[in-house]
């Protein structure tokens, strides 16, 4: 009986000597690691900020107008639109789209001036 009691005391001491198994609230826990999951992107990018997409589209429209109707100011506005679209673009966006819009606007400006080297006249 004494040995039994002694055994229990020893186990108890052992238990108390060990570090507390209760979770320390402020300690980082490697077991609780979760990987980063990007938020669902089917609606978020357009919802958050549609500026780059709108500017891209506007740029293309203006450059087509500048090329077809031979309007210099349209071509210049297209260049500005493609710059604004680039500045507001997300890193996940395709650079090819951006580059194609940019090239189209530059070509619109160049073609307008090749066809008609006169300087642009202000509308006023």
């Amino acid at each position: 009986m004494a040995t039994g009691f002694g055994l229990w005391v020893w186990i108890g001491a052992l238990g108390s000597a060990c570090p507390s198994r209760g979770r320390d609230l402020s300690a980082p826990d490697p077991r609780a690691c979760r990987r980063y999951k990007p938020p669902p992107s089917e609606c978020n990018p357009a919802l958050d900020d549609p500026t780059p997409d709108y500017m891209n589209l506007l740029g293309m429209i203006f450059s087509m107008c500048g090329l077809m109707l031979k309007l210099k100011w349209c071509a210049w506005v297209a260049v500005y639109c493609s710059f604004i679209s680039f500045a507001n673009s997300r890193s996940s966006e395709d650079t090819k789209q951006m580059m194609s819009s940019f090239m189209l606007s530059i070509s619109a400006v160049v073609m307008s001036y090749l066809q008609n080297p006169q300087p642009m006249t202000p509308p006023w």
Partner: protein
Amino acid sequence: MYRMAVHFGVLFFFFKFFSQGAMKVLHTFCVVLLVFWSVSEAKFDDFEDEEDIVEYDDNDFAEFEDVMEDSVTESPQRVITTEDDEDETTVELEGQDENQEDFEDVDTQEGDTESEPYDDEEFEGYEDKPDTSSSKNKDPITIVDVPAHLQNSWESYYLEILMVTGLLAYIMNYIIGKNKNSRLAQAWFNSHRELLESNFTLVGDDGTNKEATSTGKLNQENEHIYNLWCSGRVCCEGMLIQLRFLKRQDLLNVLARMMRPVSDQVQIKVTMNDEDMDTYVFAVGTRKALVRLQKEMQDLSEFCSDKPKSGAKYGLPDSLAILSEMGEVTDGMMDTKMVHFLTHYADKIESVHFSDQFSGPKIMQEEGQPLKLPDTKRTLLFTFNVPGSGNTYPKDMEALLPLMNMVIYSIDKAKKFRLNREGKQKADKNRARVEENFLKLTHVQRQEAAQSRREEKKRAEKERIMNEEDPEKQRRLEEAALRREQKKLEKKQMKMKQIKVKAM
């Protein structure tokens, strides 16, 4: 004309006088002579120089006797004189036309006139005329500028130069703005790194690596948005920090901000484990932000239908308001430390939102309500404004460090806080109510969806039967389908009978 009349009179007299036979021939000759003489004299009436007249008289007949050459040499003179005489140009030209019937080429005459030297005497009448014209020219002359497109100078391209300058300015601003945002983000991370690393095992993860290792740097989403994912802590799944800076890289945005100052923001979203957070919805922040959130957020609009209340009861400044599902939650949340945080950093706090029913902003669907409730997560959301109201410096980022302490404290608080029995019952009732409302609204749509699903199943089965090549199998499948349909009909009929019996 008078002279012509005189000559004709003379002619008549001679005709009468010489009308008798023997003198008839002489008479006719004289008449002809007289006619031609009178005509030629009338033409050269204005000549002052008698020598010319004699000269022309001699040439008069030579004109008709000789061929082209003489006439060519002669006629230029006549052309000159006729051109000089403005008064009798028409008459003389007519006479000239009669004489020059044989002439075919008028151009050669004109060519010869150019080569012929002009006689000064013929221009006597013209001395006055240049004088009169010069007197007319003394009126002011307006010198018109050469049109711009015909000029050959850079100045005419001023609009193009303006455009290129604008583009250069935009590019300069892009570079400067991008660098500033990058420096601000780095300053924030440097000041918060220690705190984050002491609380989370995983600091910085972009989701691309195979293993969960800390990248230790921000994830750049945009030129003005930086993300940081922290994970590996008790009670929470993870924390996503988003640094939403102003679009300093876009010149248009910079100009718009001059009209309306806006602050940089830091948004923190802590995803809690299901067992570590009780069921409640609570928000505190500026009145304006809470009104906006109440409209936009699904859970706040459903569970916190009252207007934002003032937090003065708990010692909060007037700028802050509270939205809560029930009073017990507010009492539990507003302990001294939380009040201390909120009071001291009220200018930097935009909103604090704790919710177990968080599902993001309200989804506007075109086909009406969505068919099932959106997925909810237990979330703690914090939105802080960076001091400076747009004119931020990297050193201002250190001022946000106490707010991160508040976030950590809130995580622990949310874990510890538990509703009592009454509160729990109330919360459960609220959630059940919301769900029921949702189901009622979507009842019709769900029925339609179920119907369409059943039809799809039938169609798929029929197709399977049709595609079955073995006729035996086909027959058996058809029979099985028929039997199933009959069973369903029987069941329905039984139900109807039971309802009728109950009603009775």
